[in-house]
C-alpha cells in the first residue's frame, strides 16, 4: 500500500503535460507542453511563431475541448482571421461557439502620453475577462514584447510581465508566449528570464537557396525532451513536425512476400518476390528500365488491392502513366479507384527535411502498403550525399515501422561504378537490383541481376531484361562457350547453334542412309554366299550319296564274281 501511495504522489509530483495536437510536436516534447505553465516560442521573423500559437489554440478547441484565448499584439483580429484561414482554421466559427476568443491589443505609441505612475492592470483585466468568459484553458500571447515598443517605460513593462506570468500560472492556464529572436539572446527583451519552464525555438534557414524550417526544444524544465533540431512544415493542414527522435531500429520483420510483378524476377528472389516491409533499391544508368520495374511492382500491388504511393521526382503523373502504357501497364484504373496516388515534385522545390516531412505526412494520410521513390538520386540537387543518406535512412525507418514496402530507384551516371550507388544508400537497402546496359556488337541490351537480397536465397544469374508491349520479361542470357551474350548477339549465337545442330543432324541422317545402303549390299552378299554354301553342301551330299551306291554295287558284283569262281573251289 505504501509503495503504491508513494508512486501515486510521485506521479502527481511529476510535471503534467497537455498535448498540443500538433503533428510531431507532442512526440518531441514527450507528451506536450507543461500544463498550467507558460511556454516561450521564439525565433526570427517569419518562422511561424504566430501560427504555432494559433494552432495550439485551435487544436485545443477542436480536439481536446479546451477553449483558448489569443491575444494579438501585432495583428488585428481581421488580419489574423484571414491569415490563418489559409491553414483551414475557421476562427469566426470557433469564436461563435465560444471555443476561441481573439483579442487584439493595439497600442499606438504616438497616441500615448505618459504622465506618471501606472501599471498594466488593464491588460490583466482584459485577459482575465477573456479567459473567464469562455472558460479558457489555453492562452496565446503574440508577441507580448511589442509592449516594450509601445510603452515608454521598459522598467514598468518588465515588472508587469513578471507579474503577468505569475498570474498566468496562478490561473492554471497553459500559455504560449511568442518572442522574436534578439542578438545573442533568445528574445529581444529577454522574455526567457520570465518564462523559464519550456522554451521552443523555431528557425528558418536558407541553404542553397532552399529554406527549411526547423524546431528544437531548447529547454523543458522537469521533463525529458528531444534535443535534436527537427524539420517542420507549414501547409494547408497546419504544422507538421517530423519527430526524428522517436525513431529507432526496433521494427518487426515480416516473412510475408510481395510480388515484384515479374514472375521471372520473383523466381530470382527466392521464388516469391520481395519481403513485405523491406526496402528495395533499383539502380542503373539512364534508360535501363528502372521506372518500368517500379511501375510493374505498383501494378502488381494495386492488383492485389494494396494502396501504393508513388513519389515522382522527374516526371509528372500523366507522363509516367503514358510511358508505362507503352509497355502494357495501365495504372489509370488504380488511380481512379483510389488505390494509387501519385505525388510529383521537383526535389529542388524544397529542402531535404521539408521533403521528408512532406513524404511522412502523405504516407500518414494515405496509409499505403507500398511506396515508390523515383528516383532518389535527384535529391542530390538539394543536399550532399551524407545528407541524402541521412534523410533516406530516416525515410526507411518511417516506412519500415509501418511495414510498408519501399522501392527506390537510383540513377547511376555513366562511367561511375555501378556497384556504388550514387547516394551511398545501398547498405540501407534490403534488396538491390542492378539494371545495366550490355553493349556488344553495335547494340545495347539490358541485363538485370540481384546484387543482394537479405534473407532469401536469390539467384546469382544475369538475366536479359526485355521490355515489350506486354510488359517486362526476363530471358536467360546466352552463357555458353565462356561468354555472356544478349539481344541480337544472343539470338545470333542461338541461330548459329541451331544451324550447327541442324547440320549435325543432317550429317547423321546421311551417314544413316549410307549405312543402310551398305547394309543392303552386305546383306545381298550374305545371301549370295549362303546360296553358294548351300550349293556346296548339296554337291557334297550328292557326291557322298553316289559313292555309297557305287560301293554297294561293286560289292554285289564281287559276290557274283565269287560265286562264279566257286566251281573249281
Amino acid at each position, binding site marked *: 500500500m505504501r509503495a503504491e501511495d508513494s508512486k501515486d504522489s510521485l506521479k502527481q509530483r511529476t510535471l503534467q503535460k497537455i498535448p498540443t495536437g500538433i503533428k510531431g510536436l507532442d512526440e518531441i516534447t514527450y507528451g506536450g507542453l507543461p500544463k498550467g505553465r507558460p511556454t516561450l516560442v521564439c525565433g526570427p521573423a517569419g518562422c511561424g511563431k504566430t501560427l504555432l500559437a494559433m494552432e495550439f489554440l485551435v487544436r485545443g478547441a477542436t480536439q481536446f475541448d479546451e477553449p483558448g484565448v489569443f491575444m494579438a499584439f501585432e495583428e488585428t483580429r481581421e488580419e489574423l482571421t484571414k491569415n490563418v484561414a489559409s491553414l483551414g482554421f475557421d476562427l469566426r466559427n470557433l469564436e461563435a461557439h465560444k471555443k476561441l476568443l481573439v483579442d487584439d491589443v493595439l497600442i499606438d505609441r504616438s497616441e500615448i502620453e505618459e504622465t506618471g505612475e501606472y501599471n498594466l*492592470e*488593464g491588460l490583466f483585466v482584459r485577459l482575465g475577462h477573456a479567459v473567464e468568459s469562455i472558460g479558457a484553458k489555453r492562452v496565446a500571447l503574440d508577441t507580448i514584447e511589442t509592449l516594450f515598443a509601445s510603452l515608454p517605460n521598459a522598467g514598468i513593462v518588465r515588472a508587469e510581465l513578471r507579474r503577468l506570468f505569475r498570474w498566468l500560472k496562478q490561473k492554471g492556464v497553459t500559455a504560449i508566449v511568442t518572442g522574436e529572436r534578439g542578438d545573442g539572446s533568445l528574445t529581444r527583451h529577454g522574455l526567457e528570464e520570465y518564462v523559464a519552464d519550456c522554451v521552443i525555438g523555431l528557425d528558418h534557414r536558407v541553404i542553397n537557396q532552399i529554406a527549411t524550417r526547423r524546431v528544437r526544444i531548447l529547454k523543458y524544465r522537469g521533463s525529458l525532451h528531444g534535443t535534436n533540431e527537427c524539420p517542420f512544415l507549414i501547409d494547408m493542414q497546419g504544422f507538421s513536425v517530423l519527430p526524428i527522435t522517436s525513431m529507432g531500429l526496433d521494427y518487426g520483420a515480416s516473412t510475408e512476400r510481395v510480388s515484384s510483378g515479374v514472375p521471372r524476377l520473383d523466381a530470382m528472389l527466392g521464388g516469391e518476390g520481395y519481403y513485405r516491409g523491406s526496402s528495395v533499391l533499383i539502380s542503373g544508368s539512364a534508360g535501363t528500365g528502372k521506372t518500368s520495374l517500379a511501375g510493374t511492382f505498383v501494378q502488381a500491388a494495386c492488383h492485389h488491392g494494396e494502396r501504393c504511393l508513388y513519389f515522382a521526382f522527374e516526371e509528372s503523373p500523366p507522363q509516367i502513366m503514358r510511358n508505362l502504357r507503352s509497355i502494357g501497364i495501365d495504372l489509370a484504373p488504380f488511380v481512379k479507384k483510389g488505390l494509387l496516388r501519385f505525388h510529383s515534385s521537383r526535389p529542388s522545390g524544397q529542402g531535404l527535411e521539408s521533403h521528408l516531412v512532406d513524404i511522412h505526412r502523405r504516407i500518414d494520410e494515405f496509409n499505403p502498403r507500398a511506396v515508390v521513390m523515383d528516383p532518389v538520386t535527384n535529391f542530390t540537387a538539394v543536399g550532399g550525399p551524407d545528407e541524402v543518406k541521412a534523410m533516406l535512412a530516416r525515410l526507411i525507418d518511417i516506412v519500415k515501422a509501418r511495414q510498408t514496402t519501399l522501392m527506390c530507384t537510383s540513377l547511376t551516371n555513366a562511367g561511375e561504378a555501378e556497384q556504388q550507388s550514387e547516394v551511398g544508400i545501398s547498405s540501407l537497402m534490403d534488396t538491390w537490383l542492378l539494371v545495366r546496359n550490355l553493349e556488344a556488337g553495335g547494340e545495347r541490351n539490358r541485363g538485370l541481376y540481384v546484387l543482394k537480397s537479405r534473407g532469401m536465397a536469390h539467384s546469382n544469374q544475369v538475366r536479359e531484361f526485355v521490355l515489350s508491349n506486354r510488359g517486362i520479361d526476363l530471358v536467360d542470357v546466352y552463357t555458353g562457350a565462356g561468354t555472356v551474350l544478349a539481344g541480337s548477339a544472343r539470338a545470333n549465337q542461338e541461330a548459329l547453334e541451331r544451324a550447327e545442330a541442324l547440320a549435325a543432324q543432317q550429317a547423321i541422317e546421311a551417314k544413316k542412309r549410307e549405312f543402310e545402303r551398305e547394309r543392303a549390299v552386305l546383306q545381298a552378299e550374305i545371301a549370295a554366299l549362303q546360296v553358294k554354301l548351300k550349293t556346296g553342301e548339296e554337291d557334297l551330299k550328292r557326291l557322298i550319296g553316289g559313292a555309297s551306291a557305287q560301293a554297294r554295287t561293286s560289292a554285289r558284283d564281287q559276290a557274283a564274281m565269287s560265286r562264279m569262281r566257286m566251281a573249281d573251289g
Partner: protein
Amino acid sequence: MKPKPTAKRVKRAHPPKAAWNLRLYVAGQTPRCVRAFANLKRICDTHLAGTYRIEVVDLLQSPQLSRGDQIVAIPTLVRRLPPPVKRIIGDLSNSERVLVGLDLRSDAL
C-alpha cells in the same frame, strides 16, 4: 471628490456645452487611481471649467469595456472629444505632460 466604484458620469454645471469628453479607466480604488482622478479634476477645473465631462470606468466592475478603448495601462485617460482620440497613461501627476497630452498647453498659456 472621490471616484465612484462603478462607471459613472460626473456632470459639470453646463452639460450641454461639454465640448470635452474625457474617460478615465481605473481598476478598483487603488491609491494610484484615486490620485489620478483627483489630478484630472484639478486640471479640468483649472483649464476647462464648465466645458468638460468626465466618465470614470472601473474595469474591475465592467472588464468588457477594456477592449473598446484598447486599455492596457491603468490608469488611462482617453480624450474622446474633441477628436482625435488621445490616450494618456499614468496617474496624471505630471500636469505639464497631461496638458500636452490633451493639447491644452497653448490654451493654458
